[in-house]
């Protein structure tokens, strides 16, 4: 039977079909569609972060005071170094990725395998670093008290150094026992109690005349406001209602709750992208080893997953700026 192909007589003309004005394959174009829309999603998050930051412009935490940990350097104030290291790891894994794409263009299977492997390792190291960063953020360092209005009050000594709750509070003998589901009504349990009660903190603060309160308000020098001893005692006794250690979605010891919420959400969403990227990279890595692209005589799949991986790196460059630098 005659094939029912319709001949239009326009083949080879602009609108004759089969024209590729962008000179890119379908898969690559779709990856660009995805990347552009995902970029808009991330900008939505970052712009919302900016909105909240402008809203609380004079009480936002100072990043250098929050993210100042470095592995094996306990108690050393090391702002920026760790996150700079993470940035280098991610940029370097981007470099190995683009080297893999480059080797793919020349159909060098061995080189593609090697560079893909390095990329995956870089991604995994980055994810581990992110987890460590979260651990420090969630556990907190010093602890603070919160007021009825939701403000955070931190403790410092006469030299302006931060003082931990454990050095302020007097442990109380009559402290309440945490209510667990196995006591009383079986389905009701509460969150783990903070290590110190607000009464213990107030009593300890009154005894140690060296201690001062630091509020979350930023003064004209760009530093957090420090109250005098009298103001500190008055503020603590009249306003403080609870103790906060570390960070969760409701409260954190650094400042406005939104700070921790955005930190968890944006770095979490980015970390999820890195995680998916590592998984996709692993799949492509095994395809390279199995020789799938060798047989196809085309390594474009490596290029497509590479686009995604670079995009993740690109997003991190912005997260780095807006969470840690600005």
């Amino acid at each position, binding site marked *: 039977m005659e094939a029912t192909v319709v001949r239009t007589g326009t083949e080879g003309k602009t609108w004759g079909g089969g024209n590729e*004005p*962008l*000179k*890119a*394959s379908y898969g690559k*174009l779709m990856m*660009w569609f995805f*990347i*552009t829309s995902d*970029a*808009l999603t991330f*900008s*939505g998050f970052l*712009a*919302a972060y*900016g*909105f*909240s930051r*402008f*809203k*609380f*412009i*004079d009480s936002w935490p100072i990043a250098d005071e929050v993210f100042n940990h470095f592995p094996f350097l306990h108690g050393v104030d090391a*702002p*920026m*170094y760790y996150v*700079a290291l993470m*940035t*280098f790891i991610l*940029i*370097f894994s*981007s*470099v190995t*990725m*683009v*080297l893999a*794409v*480059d080797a793919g*263009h020349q159909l060098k299977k061995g080189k593609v395998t090697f560079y893909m492997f390095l990329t995956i390792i870089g991604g995994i190291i980055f994810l581990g670093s992110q987890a460590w960063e979260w651990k420090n953020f969630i556990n907190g360092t010093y602890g603070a008290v919160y*007021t009825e*209005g*939701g403000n955070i009050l931190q403790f410092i000594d006469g030299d302006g150094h931060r003082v931990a709750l454990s050095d302020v509070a007097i442990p109380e003998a009559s402290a309440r026992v945490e209510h667990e589901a196995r006591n009383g009504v079986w389905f009701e349990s509460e969150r783990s109690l903070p290590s110190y009660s607000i009464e213990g903190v107030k009593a300890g603060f009154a005894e140690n005349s060296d201690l001062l309160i630091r509020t979350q308000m930023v003064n004209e020098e*760009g530093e957090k406001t420090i109250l005098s001893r009298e103001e500190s005692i008055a503020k603590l006794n009249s306003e403080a209602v609870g103790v906060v250690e570390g960070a969760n979605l409701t409260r954190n010891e650094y400042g406005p709750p939104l700070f921790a919420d955005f930190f968890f959400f944006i770095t979490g969403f980015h970390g999820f992208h890195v995680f998916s990227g590592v998984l996709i990279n692993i799949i492509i890595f095994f395809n390279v080893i199995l020789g799938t692209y060798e047989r*196809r*005589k*085309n390594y*474009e799949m490596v290029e497509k997953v*590479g*686009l995604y991986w*670079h*995009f993740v*790196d*690109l997003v991190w*460059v*912005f997260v*780095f*700026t807006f969470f*840690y*630098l*600005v």
Partner: protein
Amino acid sequence: MAHDTAHHHESNTKRIWTVFIILSIVTLVEVVFGILKPEFLTDTSFLSMSLLNWIFILLTIYKAYYIAWAFMHLEGETKGLRRAVVWTSIFLISYLIFILLTEGGYIYEVYKSNHVAWDF
């Protein structure tokens, strides 16, 4: 698919390493500025933001340019594809940032002048 194998690809390794060095240096500069925080930069305000923050943002965009152009290979794509990606993002993101930051600043002023109280 076949058209990709048709034309011969040269190795771009030199370009890749150059871009890596540029990105590393820019990141290092950012980190050094972030640690030192020179006073003449933090105290000078330009368009209601400190000069230091403007430098950070400009350096970030500079890095983004290199990642997109060299690593994501936008420099080798057709003009149409490049513009579809870049201009779409730039227009929409600028608009979003403008609206949200203006609004955030406005709400700050409302709270500050105690039209609405939030600290009880």
